[in-house]
């Protein structure tokens, strides 16, 4: 396998170095007139048209974001074929591709302007502490398929890159107020200013909601982000993004009617600096450095909580003393388990080469992850340093044939390594029809939580602490899991009606899947302890369809459909009994067979907009959640705009989600999604 990883890396380096012998040109040529507007960058790191990309890509643009009526970021991914979105709690979400998930989907990379927000503490992104408002987003590029050859381990099943708006392209100021169901109130302000070197934007949000009626799983958030863009010379572009997000949310495992939500306070911040330098017309150097930090804080249980836990309903002083000793022995114990601090620091240097028929992006990066949690890592603080080298290469063999090769090597200091590669051949059968055949082999290194999670509950014993319940134990020998993906795609652009159809059939097989496993232990509580092992095997086959059409200037639609046949021999949990026999808890389906997301937008007048969205998801069993029945949901949105003056516009938008009011559940049986209504007012100063 190592051969296949390094072959594309070497071949492309040699080819590029041979072709770079040509002198750089600073004179104008026909390229000035022929250059297209960049379409996507996330699949390979360099700019490509959708039809030249090695994998299927869906772009969610600003028009879709507005028309969808989405109130939170994850809701948008219902419009992407093969993606599933679920509310775990009112303010806790999961986004996954081809199912196989629990409440922390861990096989999808999520980035904001190339900055990974995948948190190794929870092995997933924390969607409610990103410090990002929907108004901050220009477009979202969603890579449907393994993209580790470009973005590393976390892009095991796919990748999302959220591209924020360029400050200069925005109105001078905007105020947005939203009020609606669940006691939602949100105020948002944004301001852009010109400096002598470039533009900056300040975006601030205050959000509160009261959560669901049954569990009152409320939230309050305050966040602020700053984006600045400088172009000191024609060859240099510097982008700076800073953000801070503070607040709290109530979370819980709502499997029972009397389940309680516990308050989790959080503090998150990030800093991201990116410098692009054009060495000449064809060569570019990009240096990117960022730091994310997230502190999740749940209050420690009181002595009375411990007493209750120990079964002392009306504790006397002796029982309280015992409960106090127990509390002292378990300073990290929390109800939710999502408690701790994590920090990521990343530095990457990328070299891009772009000529008319060759594009190439290669680079190296280093990432340091830190996890500090008395709850999750009782053996002490955990940190890991990972190094990576990557290369992505596109060559137009002929005007009809395009070859894409990509490879990435990751090495975690004193631990496992991972190798990934991808190849794709695109054939432009005609000016509007492209066929694509792609194959990839990808490996995902385990996250800190998966590898080093270690927690137990202790009780005071006559000779010292004794283990009451061993919850999880680490597995330092955990290896990378791997996936082999094969896809055949066709993209057809329409001439008479603007739009395109993208269809793909795929087969993917995951081996050595990192799976949560119960092994036998002789603790006092349940004689089992959770441990992650490379034991899962599963396979998905199916097809996906994406249709974008704009029949008239006033009407456009976007449809996403996915059919997935999910099979597994061993899935996420199993149990090794005392006698050594293994039982697997294979509860199918690990992915819904049919998913659909459709959005139609109609603007009968330039200041009036009406949109309709419909979503469907088939049966699925979410690990840690419940077996979910199929559901349909229809949302509508109506907006009207008024010109208040030459420089001011006001927009009012009414969104009704689940308009049919057929209450349904997305993750837990008792956590409802009922009809929700939101009114938004937006005032813009141009």
């Amino acid at each position, binding site marked *: 396998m190592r051969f296949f990883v390094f072959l594309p890396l070497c071949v492309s380096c040699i080819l590029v*170095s*041979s072709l770079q012998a040509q002198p750089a040109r600073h004179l*104008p040529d026909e390229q*000035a007139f022929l250059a297209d507007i960049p379409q996507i960058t996330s699949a390979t790191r360099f700019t490509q048209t959708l039809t030249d990309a090695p994998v299927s890509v869906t772009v969610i643009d600003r028009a879709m974001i507005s028309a969808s009526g989405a109130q939170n970021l994850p809701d948008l991914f219902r419009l992407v074929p093969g993606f599933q979105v679920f509310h775990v709690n009112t303010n806790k979400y999961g986004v996954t591709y081809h199912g196989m998930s629990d409440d922390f989907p861990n096989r999808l990379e999520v980035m904001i302007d190339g900055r990974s927000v995948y948190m190794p503490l929870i092995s997933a992104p924390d969607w409610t502490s990103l410090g990002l408002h929907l108004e901050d987003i220009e477009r979202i590029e969603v890579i449907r398929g393994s993209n580790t050859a470009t973005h590393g381990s976390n892009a095991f099943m796919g990748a999302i890159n959220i591209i924020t708006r*360029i400050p200069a*392209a925005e109105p001078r100021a905007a105020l947005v107020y939203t009020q609606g169901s669940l006691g939602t109130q949100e105020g948002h302000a944004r301001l852009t200013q*010109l400096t002598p070197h470039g533009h900056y934007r300040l975006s601030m949000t205050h959000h509160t909601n009261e959560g669901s009626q049954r569990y009152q799983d409320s939230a309050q958030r305050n966040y602020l982000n700053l984006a600045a863009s400088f172009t000191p*010379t*024609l060859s240099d*572009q510097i982008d700076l993004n800073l953000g801070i997000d503070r607040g709290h949310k109530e979370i819980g495992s709502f499997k029972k009617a009397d389940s309680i939500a516990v308050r989790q306070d959080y503090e998150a911040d990030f800093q991201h600096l990116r410098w692009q330098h054009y060495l000449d017309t064809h060569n570019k150097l990009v240096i990117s450095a960022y730091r994310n930090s997230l502190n999740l804080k749940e209050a420690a249980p009181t002595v009375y909580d411990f007493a209750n836990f120990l079964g002392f309903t009306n504790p006397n002083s002796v029982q309280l003393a015992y409960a106090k000793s127990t509390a002292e022995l378990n300073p990290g114990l929390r109800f939710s388990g999502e408690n701790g601090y994590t920090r990521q620091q990343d530095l990457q240097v990328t070299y891009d080469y772009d000529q008319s028929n060759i594009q190439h992006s290669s680079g190296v990066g280093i990432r340091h992850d830190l996890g500090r949690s008395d709850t999750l890592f009782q053996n002490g603080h955990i940190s890991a340093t990972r190094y990576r080298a990557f290369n992505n290469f596109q060559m137009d063999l002929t005007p009809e044939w395009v070859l894409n090769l990509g490879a990435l090597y990751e090495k975690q200091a004193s631990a496992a390594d991972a190798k990934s590669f991808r190849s794709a051949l695109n054939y432009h059968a005609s000016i509007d029809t492209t066929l694509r055949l792609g194959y990839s082999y990808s490996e995902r290194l385990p996250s800190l939580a998966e590898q080093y999670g270690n927690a137990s509950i202790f009780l005071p014993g006559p000779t010292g602490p004794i283990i009451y319940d061993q919850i999880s134990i680490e597995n330092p020998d955990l290896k990378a899991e791997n996936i082999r993906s094969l896809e055949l795609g066709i993209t057809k652009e329409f001439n008479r009606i603007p739009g395109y159809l993208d269809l793909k059939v795929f087969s993917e097989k995951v081996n050595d899947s990192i799976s949560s496993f119960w092994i036998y232990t002789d603790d006092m509580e349940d004689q089992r302890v959770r441990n992650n092992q490379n034991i899962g095997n599963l396979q998905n086959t199916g097809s996906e369809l994406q249709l974008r059409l704009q029949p008239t200037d006033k009407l456009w639609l976007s449809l996403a459909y996915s059919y997935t046949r999910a099979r597994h021999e061993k899935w996420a949990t199993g149990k090794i009994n005392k006698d050594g026999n293994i039982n697997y808890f294979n509860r199918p389906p690990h992915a819904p067979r049919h998913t659909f997301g459709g959005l139609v937008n109609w603007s009968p007048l330039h200041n009036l907009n009406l949109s309709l969205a419909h979503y469907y998801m088939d049966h699925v069993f979410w690990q840690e959640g419940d077996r979910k029945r199929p559901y349909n949901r229809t949302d509508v949105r109506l907006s009207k705009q008024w010109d208040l003056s030459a420089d001011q516009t006001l927009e009012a938008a009414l969104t009704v989600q689940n308009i049919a009011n057929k209450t349904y559940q997305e993750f837990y049986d008792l956590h409802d999604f009922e009809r929700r209504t939101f009114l938004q007012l937006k005032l813009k100063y141009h």
Partner: protein
Amino acid sequence: MLSKDVAKTLRSRLSQSVQRLWLVCLCISPLAQATDIPLVLTDNSGIYQQFARLISQRTALPTETLLLNQATHEIRQRPIVVAIGTRACEELARHTQSPTRLICTFLPSQAFQHLIDHPQKADTDIERAIDAVFLDQPIQRQVALARLLVPQAKYLGTLYGESSQIYQTEIEEYAQQYGFLTLSDFLREEGNPVQTLTPLLERSQVFLALPDSTLFNRTVTKWLLYISLRNRVPLIGFSESYVDAGALIGVYSTPEQQAQQVAETLSAIRQGRSPVQAFPQYFTLKVNSNTERTLRMRLPSLDQLSQALLQEEMR
């Protein structure tokens, strides 16, 4: 030194091998005749191939499409040779001899101007020896369009780079003719585009984007689009993608229109016409309706604008 030589040789051989592979992949007519007009492509990108096909479809004369590195001595001696793209023009201008007639097309006028200013053959008067059909629009057409868009405007803004500077005199002449005062600045490679563009766009009432080097276009275009929109200044772009990206209007020639003019040039040469370097005779206008709405403008129909421009050019 030895290892450097070896690496250089290997690189050269590899480069040749890759080029040969492309040759095999190219669909070249096996029945090409020595009398066919060679259409020589700068490289094998789809856009050059498509342009060559369009020329073949529009001329009654037999043609043969080939890559620049396939242009053998025999090819270069044919009576008429068409160079598609700047690099093909540069190379063939260097290697063709009279009485061969070379037509350079699919290149901007500045590139051709550079060729004239820096001739590789001391004894050749390129202007008298080569026909050309440029990609860029005549300055008069662009300035006239600015006047039609904003009849009451007083200030016409432009930003020059090292390559587009050659337009300055002509722009000022036509600006005066159409009743504009020009506002312009010059941006070097080490210059800050935002600092340069912002004051310019704050005072301009209509702005003309000019094609320059790729680096200039890549960086300046982005800021020009943003700052012009923010200051509500109508921006005239020079390509379709410029309009798609946010310019109010674009004036440009499609490959079909360019190919038609090349086909007509071939006929004219057959009929004994002397070499002519021409700007596009046929052109297209395209409006970005979102930008039109944002700027709160109501433009005349594209037909009206086109007719008005043609009348201006015939005056």
